[in-house]
């Protein structure tokens, strides 16, 4: 394997982490919740693709759309059912609820689909490209491009649109946002929808790369993406992307030098170092207490 191939692999894996990390960071930004159920939403997305293509025999395009829409809907549902009743509750209650939702989704999936892995069929039959004698996977290129486009669109949404500004207003001061006439609950639901739709895109890209769905697949993926979000500075959109890419590269290069047993450990080591040296993450804002 050449260096260029490894860079591409790192970008591919990092892109998926980045997409998932964006969801963590958005939800944290608006309600200060570490949504531990976020990784499991990806798992559900992968199963939706499997159902649509393998079980129903429908088109991959439909599988992609339904995975994304399904994840977005699931995110909103989780917010409405599990988190919204706890808006005024202490943050710890919310955190514990998120862990509960995570277990519920994992065990629910195991109950419905069984514990064994399901094979998600290829979405597209893509040839490997060759540039100057170096093989480039089309999957990797699609993943990188889709992530880049999603990040740009998300940035425009948050910075320029009315809803995006409302999201920022709610994240800074919920009470003041209410006084502006902003429907805070709907704005939070919208944030969950967007974050979970990104998880849905992540689910499709992940299934393209690894072709399988298991009830527990979201745990490690979610945890790594969470590390990525913290690494980049939780609450920051560019931070999530940088963190995701860093984690992806770290894993791929550790494997490439023959230490693949250590790839998870290196990611968490990276987290520990960042938490010690720069607790707010690379692009995180210093914590200021609201008065």
């Amino acid at each position: 394997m050449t260096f260029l191939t490894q860079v591409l692999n790192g970008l591919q894996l990092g892109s998926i982490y980045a997409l998932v990390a964006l969801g963590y960071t958005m939800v944290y930004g608006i309600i200060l919740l570490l949504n531990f159920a976020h990784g499991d939403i990806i798992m559900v997305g992968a199963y939706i693709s499997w159902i649509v293509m393998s079980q129903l025999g429908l088109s991959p395009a439909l599988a992609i759309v339904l995975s994304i829409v399904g994840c977005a809907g699931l995110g909103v549902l989780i917010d409405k059912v599990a988190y919204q009743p706890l808006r005024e509750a202490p943050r710890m209650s919310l955190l514990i609820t998120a862990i509960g939702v995570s277990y519920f989704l994992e065990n629910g999936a195991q109950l419905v689909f069984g514990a064994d892995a399901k094979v998600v069929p290829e979405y597209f039959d893509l040839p490997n490209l060759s540039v100057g004698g170096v093989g480039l996977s089309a999957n990797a290129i699609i993943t990188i491009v889709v992530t880049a486009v999603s990040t740009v669109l998300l940035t425009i949404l948050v910075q320029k649109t009315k809803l995006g500004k409302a999201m920022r207003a709610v994240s800074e001061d919920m009470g003041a946002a209410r006084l502006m006439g902003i429907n805070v609950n709907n704005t939070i639901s919208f944030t969950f929808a967007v974050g979970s739709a990104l998880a849905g895109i992540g689910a499709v890209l992940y299934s393209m790369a690894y072709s399988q769905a298991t009830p527990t697949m979201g745990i490690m993926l979610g945890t790594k993406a969470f590390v990525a979000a913290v690494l980049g500075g939780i609450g920051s959109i560019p931070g999530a992307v940088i963190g995701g890419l860093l984690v992806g590269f770290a894993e791929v290069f550790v494997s490439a030098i023959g230490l693949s047993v250590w790839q998870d450990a290196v990611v968490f080591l990276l987290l520990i170092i960042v938490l010690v040296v720069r607790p707010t993450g690379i692009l995180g804002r210093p914590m200021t207490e609201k008065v």
Partner: protein
Amino acid sequence: MAMLSVNGLAVSYGAIKAVKGISFDIDEGEIVTLIGANGAGKSTTLNTIAGLIKPDAGSIKFKGEELVGIKPHKIVERGLALCPEGRRVFTHMTVAENLDMGGYTRTDAENKETLEVVYEHFPRLKERINQVAGTLSGGEQQMLAMGRALMSRPKLLMLDEPSMGLAPILVDEIFEIIETLNKNGTTILLVEQNANMALKVAARGYVLETGKIVKTGTGAELLVDDDVRKAYLGG
């Protein structure tokens, strides 16, 4: 008929009764002020009218319609805006974005119009349009908070301690703007610790003490009232 009439309003935080059955009203075109010491229940009253706090008892009628039980964002749509204590501008957002949020319930075309009116009252905001609100001075933040509240085109504007923490010259400026806004047709409910200034601009005032209204009268009457002078105007 009064534009806003509050009847028997009682509000508590847990076991602490902050407002104990107060009644007052505001006619269209008036400036009415609630004065009183810290903890008298002034801000609680405004926050309850705005829908941020649920009252234990009582009614709040705005143009004849009950407001109790209605969500804060719906109350804004009905033409009631609260400029909160401590200004609470969105410090990470620009002046323009803050004003944008103020007009959240309005159309873009309406906001474009209202923005001109706001700039007329607060020319300094126009100069700082792209500045992040957290970098504004206290006086400018107060102007932004008031401008932001105006963006929803309120029939009734509630101002909670607009002079708090401002230099005397800025306090004068803010009160001049309050009078101008009122002359241009906005009804105002003003909560102030600076009773002297508030009573000078207000048509009528209510004095709150530990959650109860203990005195009411025209601004001029209360200004010369012995009890009020002793308690709030420094003799």
